[in-house]
């Protein structure tokens, strides 16, 4: 019989109580149980960063955390970044600087940078590159992503 537990977690401000199989990682729970398919699974071994979500505000690889470990935590996923249809400054900057092509890795970059820019509002280009070095993008060559992050940081500082 599968080992299960009941957990309660908050995702993008909404509370969920679910019985989950303990071997399901957080990415699986978000996608399969909560139908939040914006979090993408790219490698399942913690190398590509596509599945990055925020757990209590910190960027974490959701393929390397069990769903049960999210019990009592506040999770933010890509679905929770925009205000309705209104893109936030980081999302808008990604669009403006063509920081995404296929869009598969994008949720991981956005969540990683969301946490990073909160702690580091005025980063250099080199620091941005280091911040996203745990995220792989095969399409963009990173240049648009870095430009978008710098632009978004400037806009958020100006607010």
């Amino acid at each position: 019989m599968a080992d299960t537990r009941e957990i309660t977690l908050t995702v993008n401000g909404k509370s969920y109580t679910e019985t989950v199989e303990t071997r399901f990682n957080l990415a699986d729970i978000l996608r399969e149980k909560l139908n939040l398919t914006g979090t993408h699974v790219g490698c399942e071994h913690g190398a590509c960063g596509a599945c990055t979500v925020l757990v209590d505000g910190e960027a974490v690889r959701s393929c390397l955390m069990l769903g049960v470990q999210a019990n009592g935590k506040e999770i933010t996923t890509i679905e929770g970044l925009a205000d309705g249809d209104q893109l936030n400054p980081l999302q808008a900057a990604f669009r403006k600087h063509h920081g995404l092509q296929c869009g598969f890795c994008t949720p991981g970059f956005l969540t990683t940078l969301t946490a990073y820019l909160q702690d580091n509002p005025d980063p250099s280009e080199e620091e941005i590159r280091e911040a996203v070095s745990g995220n792989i993008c095969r399409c963009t060559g990173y240049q648009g992503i870095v430009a978008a992050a710098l632009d978004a940081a400037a806009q958020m500082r100006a607010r």
Partner: protein
Amino acid sequence: MKPAPFKYHAPQSLTELVDLMAELEDAKILAGGQSLMPMMNMRFVAPDDVVDINGVSELSFIERANGSLRIGAMTRQKDLLASPEVKDAAPVMREALCHVGHLQTRNRGTIGGSLCHLDPSAELPAIASLYGATLTVAGREGQREVPMEEWVLAYMMPSIAPEEVLVSLSLPVWLAGHGYAYTEFARRHGDFAITGVGALVELSEGVITKAALTVAGADVKPTRLTDVEQSLAGQPANEETFKAAGAEARKIDAMSDTYVSAAYRQRLADTLVQRALATAADRAVGGE
């Protein structure tokens, strides 16, 4: 790539944890999960039981007392990076931590996890080796202390019984003003280093009075270069001295694998020892 079935446990205290580990036959401890989870996802590791120690709050601490820095096994890498005690007492650990994985993995990864996983290239075991740290391990029978040089039995094999738990690490704090450096070479930022070198020096009027050197990644475990350390003492902190130390370091035992040869690892040890010593000497108070 989904993990095999297991039974999940989440003890909330060290006592509960130790009791649980004594009962379970085939259990793995889940700390930060940054090494264990990939291995479970790939089914390299498929334990019957997974014991999550994230709820054991008494394993998470950083404290400085009596000339030592003690760190709880469950302390996360990001907390070490942010810690003023670590910055002040063991700045080389902070420098090493910048090479550990990435932002996201440091947010979860723990010092205890790194010491138990014991990847030969890993930075935190190298720091433990550099300081000649002492590890505290708990079992049902009580606690025991293991010096770092005895901790590593072999490739990714720590000296810990299946029913035991790593509690903490303690390292002696060097004099204020000591020089330090952690220098490594990896193919890409955040990768497993091919070779890394940690160096600590104390100087007086441009002369090395005390030195510690550890090479990670070259051999199956971090290698403390005690002979080189001894020969450095009394030498002027200059390029010639560092070159000689590098040449000595080049003789260390090293392994070959699919990617690089032993000879290349030794060559890197030479280069990186020179660079680490130069940086450490630059940073030390008491240089000329």
